């Protein structure tokens, strides 16, 4: 017996599907690293005009990098220190940490002085340079004043190396001398009020975003923390670092995936069982959807090389749309009864499915045009998923649904559908819609806007509070606002940064800023170093005069010879800076690579963007970068464009409908999605929800999905004429499954997905209820 073409095609499809499933399994689990991505940074849109600025954002965000920054505090000084020491030991035992610093390694204070000796004449503070170049500079008086400073003794550079104190002044400005943390009992501590804070830094062996590293490190920390708290009551542990943010994001997204995925699967299963009253349709529908999801994962990983957890959350909701195709096919099967022929069934639903697929793909393609990786990934995921699910209906399902349905659609649902269809169609419905449209106007007028970055990133408040607290106590601040300095060469960058920092210094004097961190405070430009030498040169020429001054001020001549002969030493270079271990933590301030050369200057004590922008105004090569503000601006800009896109999409869908249904019917078919959009926006206004980019993105989907319903109804009606209400029952079934999945996104922890879900909930709900207007009212007699 030769196999029928249906079986042959299905067999082929199964083979390919199996292959894709295996490939998918390999992509997800077969390779060393999981393609599942949790780092939100990787899917934020590129907002900066220059790739160097993007590099800088990345650098700064990672400055705290793969480290846990922990702050142990207790009102009892000894308890705080012992607790921190024990915490450090406990963490240090776990190999997941590359190193843990609780107790400072033994080092000599000399190490922070001696390496600077060769460069001391090239490194001057602005104040010393100004004093040296002022007309009345008197070397002997300056020496006298320094030698007779109250309490005399200074710790740092030796008097013989630095009689004027220039080097000491320079060293005092270096970052390690500006920290509020001071070494005590070999630990870095700070005191505020009665409380002692002790810093513990644990460096991870691996990435903060690596699932395995994350779990192990957090588990070890949790154990060590509870042991510490039990042993030293009254101790608190505050934490910050990328790993905690990544873990929080992951936990939220995982919860969302579970809630949305499980709840919608169960909901859809129960619904399908009730409606089809048979297990087979349920299994068929799920198989088709599952294949769609597998195809979507494969396509996404192939295109992007990764799959973001956010996409997966969105994908869980996609189930509800992908299942529509098989539902339509199964409804057709149930409605046909004993006369069912699987191949004829496919031919019957094909136009509707293709048209529906086309409108969906159109909607998602528009989503994908946005240069925003997160949305692009979702678009690719959705398009691949839809296409595969639809293809499975054409090629696989006929083989699985050869036999006629055992039972027709649940009569209860059909009766319900027919009842509503009667009520919601005809002239009366149009009048009601018109009234509702008028009622929608105040809702529209109440709409506000919100483009805040926190739509996408909403870390737990407790974590934010801890980060802020650590910043207050320890002075560590990642910060997302900074000045980017660009230049053709390293020297040009340094000179341009100095132009900025010279201005910032006057701002500090005016109290507009408390400080800043930049490389030129450690490495002045060659030009500035030459100016320093120029300021000193008159004092050292001739050398005998300097010797005479030193003697006049009271120095023994023989002791100071080395100071005079050491002048001018050599210039401090970028290579010297890079080679100095004390500067390693500040490497992130210097950018050098394929995108050019630049530096970062981070402001402290001022976050008013307008003011910060003013500081860099008119300075060549200096620009303020404010990633959250840039993203918010981008959201706002896209929100503006989105209206246009929505209009464009509506026009395209309208054209497709015009081609299929002719100029007389196009208005009717387009009315449900259009009214759905109008009413959901009004509802959002009444709910007091400000409109975000994500609401508008969801409206695009409402258009795509809503158009499907009109199509299903319009295309399905002729084939189900013998069972009035059956076609609409199918649409309602699709709508409820969509609500069960997309609607559940409204429960998401992430505001963006929440908005997405709520809009779809409203939009799909309205559209499905209005859908009956797209076909003429069912005749009473045929009931």
């Amino acid at each position, binding site marked *: 017996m030769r196999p029928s073409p249906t079986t042959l095609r299905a067999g082929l499809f199964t083979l390919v599907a199996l292959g894709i499933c295996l490939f998918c399994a390999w992509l997800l689990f077969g390779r060393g690293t999981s393609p599942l991505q949790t780092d939100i940074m990787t899917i934020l849109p590129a907002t900066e005009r220059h790739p160097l600025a993007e590099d800088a954002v990345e650098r700064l965000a990672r400055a705290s990098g793969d480290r846990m920054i922990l702050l142990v505090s207790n009102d009892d000084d000894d308890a705080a220190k012992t607790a921190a020491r024990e915490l450090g030991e406990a963490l240090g035992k776990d190999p997941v940490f590359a190193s843990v610093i609780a107790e400072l390694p033994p080092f000599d204070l000399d190490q922070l002085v001696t390496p600077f000796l060769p460069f001391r004449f090239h490194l001057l503070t602005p*104040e010393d340079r100004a004093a040296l170049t002022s007309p009345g500079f008197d070397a002997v008086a300056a020496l006298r004043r320094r030698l*007779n400073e109250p309490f005399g003794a200074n710790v740092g550079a030796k008097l013989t190396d630095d009689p004027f104190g220039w080097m000491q002044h320079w060293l005092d400005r270096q970052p390690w001398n500006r920290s509020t943390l001071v070494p005590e009992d070999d630990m870095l501590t700070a005191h505020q009020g009665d409380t002692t804070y002790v810093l513990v830094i644990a460096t991870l062996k691996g990435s903060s975003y690596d699932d395995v590293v994350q779990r192990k490190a957090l588990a070890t920390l949790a154990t060590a923390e509870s042991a510490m708290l039990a042993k030293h009551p009254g101790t608190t542990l505050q934490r910050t670092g990328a790993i905690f943010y990544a873990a929080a994001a992951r936990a939220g997204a995982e919860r969302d995936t579970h809630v949305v995925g499980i709840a919608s699967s169960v909901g859809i299963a129960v619904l399908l069982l009730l409606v089809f009253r048979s297990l087979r349709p349920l299994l068929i529908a799920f198989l088709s959807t599952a294949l769609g999801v597998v195809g979507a994962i494969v396509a996404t990983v192939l295109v992007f090389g990764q799959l973001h957890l956010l996409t997966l959350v969105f994908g869980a909701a996609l189930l509800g749309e992908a299942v529509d195709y098989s539902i339509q096919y199964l409804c057709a099967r149930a409605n046909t009864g004993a006369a069912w022929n699987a191949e004829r069934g496919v031919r019957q639903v094909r136009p509707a499915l293709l048209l529906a697929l086309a409108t969906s793909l159109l909607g998602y393609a528009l989503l994908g045009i946005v240069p925003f990786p997160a949305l692009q990934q979702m678009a690719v995921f959705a398009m691949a998923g839809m296409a595969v699910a639809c293809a499975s209906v054409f090629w696989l399902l006929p083989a699985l649904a050869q036999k006629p349905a055992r039972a027709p659609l649940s009569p209860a649902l059909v009766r319900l559908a027919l009842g509503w269809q009667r009520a919601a169609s005809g002239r009366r419905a149009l009048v009601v819609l018109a009234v509702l449209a008028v009622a929608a106007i105040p809702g529209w007028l109440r709409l506000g806007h919100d483009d805040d970055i926190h739509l996408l990133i909403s870390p737990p408040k407790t974590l934010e509070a801890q980060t802020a607290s650590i910043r207050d106590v320890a002075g560590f601040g990642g910060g997302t606002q900074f000045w980017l300095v660009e230049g053709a060469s390293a020297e040009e960058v340094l000179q341009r940064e100095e132009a900025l920092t010279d201005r910032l210094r006057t701002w500090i004097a005016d109290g507009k800023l408390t400080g800043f961190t930049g490389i030129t405070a450690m490495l002045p430009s060659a030009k500035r170093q030459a100016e320093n030498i120029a300021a000193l040169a008159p004092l050292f020429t001739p050398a005998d005069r300097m010797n005479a001054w030193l003697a006049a001020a009271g120095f023994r001549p023989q002791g100071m010879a080395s100071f005079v002969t050491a002048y001018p030493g050599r210039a401090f270079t970028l290579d010297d800076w890079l080679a100095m271990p004390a500067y390693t933590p500040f490497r992130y301030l210097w950018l050098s690579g394929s995108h050019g050369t630049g530096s970062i200057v981070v402001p402290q004590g001022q976050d008013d963007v307008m003011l910060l922008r003013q500081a860099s105004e008119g300075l060549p090569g200096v620009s303020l970068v404010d990633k959250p503000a840039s993203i918010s601006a981008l959201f706002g800009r896209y929100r503006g464009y989105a209206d246009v896109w929505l209009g464009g999409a509506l026009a395209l869908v309208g054209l497709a409908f015009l081609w299929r249904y002719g100029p007389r019917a196009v208005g009717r078919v387009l009315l449900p999605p259009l009214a759905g959009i109008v009413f959901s926006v009004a509802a959002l206004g009444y709910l007091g929800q400000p409109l975000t980019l994500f609401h508008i993105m969801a409206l695009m989907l409402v258009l795509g999905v809503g158009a499907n319903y009109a199509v299903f109804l319009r295309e399905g009606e002729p084939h189900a004429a013998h069972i009035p209400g059956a076609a609409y029952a199918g649409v309602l079934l699709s709508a409820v499954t969509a609500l069960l999945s997309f609607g559940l996104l409204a429960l998401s922890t992430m505001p963006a997905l929440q908005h997405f879900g709520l809009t779809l909930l409203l939009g799909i709900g309205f559209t499905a209820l209005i859908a009956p207007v797209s076909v003429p009212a069912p005749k009473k007699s045929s009931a």
Partner: protein
Amino acid sequence: MHRLLTLIALLFVTSVHAQAPSLANEILGSLAKHPQVRAEFSQSRENPALAEPQVSKGDLLFVIGHGMVWHTRDPFEDTLVLTSGDTRRLDAQGKLERVRDGNRGVSQVSGMLQSLLAGKSEEAARQFTITADGSIDRWTLTFVPRQARVARVLAGITLKGDAFLESIEVNLASGERTLITFTNTRDADSLTPVEAKVLGVP
């Protein structure tokens, strides 16, 4: 005040020489009885690099909780206002200017001294082992750094006095020694308007 004293006593159990907690307490308590003090000072700084000790003289005003005015008259005229963590120079016109490149050591030592006399010895006790010797009428307080890396630079600080502080001696490991002696120490009954202004005394 009682709570503070108890706290100091508690701290001293661990950080002060076992037999002396009450003495150290008494000394600090008796010094704190003079919230505003005037004195003549003489500072002598010895360093192997210097041919002879550098000596400066002047007068000072110390106000607990506010800071001090350090007025050098010899060998040059200069007035510094030392408040917590800040050094400012008072010019002849009565104008204050921040000394950006002030010696960090200066503000730290003066800050420590101020908190010590204000009855807040915890800060000092965390950084130093404090030993008290003598009697309440004739005492010596010795501060030795607890941090090994600081001890390698700073050998110790010694305070001597009776009802008032008489001298401060700072010894560095390098052999540098600064000795400040105070004479004619007395309670400052009133402040001049300029002094009150620069120290922020109401």
